[in-house]
């Protein structure tokens, strides 16, 4: 397995607040990673640094050897926490926009998944339910043939059926050349899908381990361990 993303001594401050305190992290290709931490632990900051939306104050982050920028955006497919899509657009217009934007976007795959869900491609985004809107966003992101999928809180705020759909979409789009990094604090729903979990706390990484190793060593689920580690 080859190195996909490496972060070394990554520091990010917002004014006087230190969001990341020197993060060292390596992600390999062909794995599904869970970035787990309570609110305010630095998950989204790390993701935004990886996607080039923020620049580090110290340290560096490399994706296939490049600093986040034009080249890495070609291979990183990012699902932000909040949708940035124009709500007046129709689903098919957004698909067209993604086709124009990303070389690796596969519109057939997107339409196949949309059809499977019975989402009308002529519907305007603002007329879709919250769950369907989230599904459209995920479908667009997963329809790219990217090397790294970065999903910021993909399962927060959706009903359990939608959560299952999102999880099965991640599994069925899995391919050994690509990796998925997803952040969440809803661990029990997703832990079995993950290869490795990364615990982040107060801007520091406190654990990076495989789910089965955690269960083997602790005799408990990752969710239970999380509740212990992050007890307030």
């Amino acid at each position, binding site marked *: 397995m080859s190195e996909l993303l490496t972060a070394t001594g990554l520091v990010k401050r917002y004014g006087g607040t230190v969001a990341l305190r020197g993060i060292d992290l390596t992600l390999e290709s062909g794995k599904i990673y869970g970035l787990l931490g309570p609110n305010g632990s630095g998950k989204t900051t790390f993701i935004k640094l990886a996607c080039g939306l923020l620049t580090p104050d110290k340290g560096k982050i490399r994706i296939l050897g490049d600093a986040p920028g034009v080249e890495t955006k070609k291979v990183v497919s990012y699902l932000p926490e909040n949708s940035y899509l124009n709500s007046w657009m129709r689903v098919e217009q957004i698909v067209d926009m993604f086709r124009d934007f990303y070389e690796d976007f596969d519109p057939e795959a997107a339409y196949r998944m949309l059809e499977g869900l019975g989402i009308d491609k002529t519907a305007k985004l603002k007329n879709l339910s919250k769950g369907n809107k989230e599904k459209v966003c995920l479908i667009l992101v997963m329809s790219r043939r990217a090397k790294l999928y970065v999903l910021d809180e993909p399962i927060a705020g959706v009903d359990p059926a939608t959560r299952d759909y999102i999880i099965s979409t991640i*599994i069925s789009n899995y391919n050994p050349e690509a990796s998925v990094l997803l952040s969440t604090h809803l661990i029990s729903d997703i832990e079995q*899908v993950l290869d490795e979990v990364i615990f982040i706390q107060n801007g520091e990484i406190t654990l990076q381990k495989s789910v089965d190793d955690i269960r083997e060593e602790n005799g408990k689920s990752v969710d239970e361990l999380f509740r212990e580690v992050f007890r307030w």
Partner: protein
Amino acid sequence: MDWKLDRSRPVCPQICEQLCVGIASGELKPGERLMSVREVALAAGVNPNTVQKSFEELERAGAVYSVRGSGWYVSEDTAAASRQFDGLVRQRIDGFFADMARLGINEEAAKKYVEEWKHE
């Protein structure tokens, strides 16, 4: 197959166990093609790499074999799966006697309970 997984135990051995139960019970026939790694991952809601690892472990044990470009098949010889299945049954029985011991019932008495037990 019904993939009920215990969240406090590693996934990989549980996938192996369930496949062995399937083989030992005859639900999966010798020479039969298994579900693909992706299908098992989707059905059980687990990571595809973990399923792959489980299949490889079962292959080392001789319970299944892979055909390049085609998939995974149940071995003609089901002895390996039966051994695993036996181990599983014994483990459950161990667990039962341990539970009984916690209730203050010794082995002898527990066996008597089992003998007198009738399905209601």
